[in-house]
């Protein structure tokens, strides 16, 4: 009796066509999107026969990028100055005389090396003295 039932059930199950079963279900499932972070984590943790082979260059790359970013940040940082600092301390009056024509007897060029201020001193009097 038990064998007869088992035989009939197996025959009934075998007669069912499962070929279209998954496709019938699949098109009803909502599309799921795996976040790239999860994908990256999965990729990072699986197949870890030699995990250091992946992680070592990755850490080295991260460190190299961090060092370069730090270098660029410090290299391009603008110098700060205190608002209370006297303006004269940073005066830079660098100038160059490209050409000079004069109608007076004596002309002198004076220079203050600290502020690089240049003076063109003309002596238009008879004494011809400097300041």
């Amino acid at each position, binding site marked *: 009796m038990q064998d007869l039932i088992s035989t009939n059930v197996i025959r009934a199950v075998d007669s069912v066509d499962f070929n279209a079963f998954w496709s019938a279900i699949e098109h009803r499932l909502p599309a799921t999107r795996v976040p790239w972070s999860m994908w990256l984590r999965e*990729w990072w943790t699986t*197949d*870890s*026969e*030699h995990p250091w*082979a*992946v992680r070592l*260059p*990755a850490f*080295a*790359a991260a460190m*190299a*990028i961090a060092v*370069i970013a730090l270098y*660029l940040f410090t290299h391009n940082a603008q110098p700060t100055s205190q608002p209370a600092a006297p*303006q*004269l301390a940073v*005066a*830079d*009056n*660098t*100038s*160059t*005389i*490209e*050409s*000079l*024509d*004069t*109608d*007076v007897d004596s*002309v002198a060029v*004076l220079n*203050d090396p*600290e*502020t690089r*201020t*240049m*003076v*063109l*001193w*003309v*002596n*238009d*009097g008879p004494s011809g003295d400097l*300041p």
Partner: protein
Amino acid sequence: MNAALRHGLLVVLVMCSLAAVAAAQETLATETVEPHTRGVEVHIGAVLASNSGQEFDQRLASMQRQFNALFAYSSYRLVKEQRQQVAWGERVAFDIPGGRYMIVIPKEFKNDRVLMKVMLIEGTRPIIDTALSLRDHATFLVGGPRERNGVLILSIGASTLR
């Protein structure tokens, strides 16, 4: 994706990143962009320096250090001042006490320096006719013309307008 392929991919990625950073840095270092200026503000001042009195005009405070380092006068007084915004090539005329006058013509802005022509004229006689290259926002001095009990010191400054 096996480990060797990932390793190679990371190495390529790192090299590309380093190359991109190096290229950007090189571009920043070599690129010299001439800033656009719409003109220049010329600042001219006439200072009467003498040994009569101990006055120091507070309007000249920003130049006190230069004056003390360069000259030995005991009194400095600003007798005239003029600021004028002009286009490149346009002239600035400045009448100086004592019948003289000064003409300043800013020519161009190049390598962070203002190129200008400066003429100091007395009657029809050019006392000086000079071409200067002046750092942006800097001041150049012309001194020596006698006036009353002292001498005149003329300050000429130029600041580009952006």
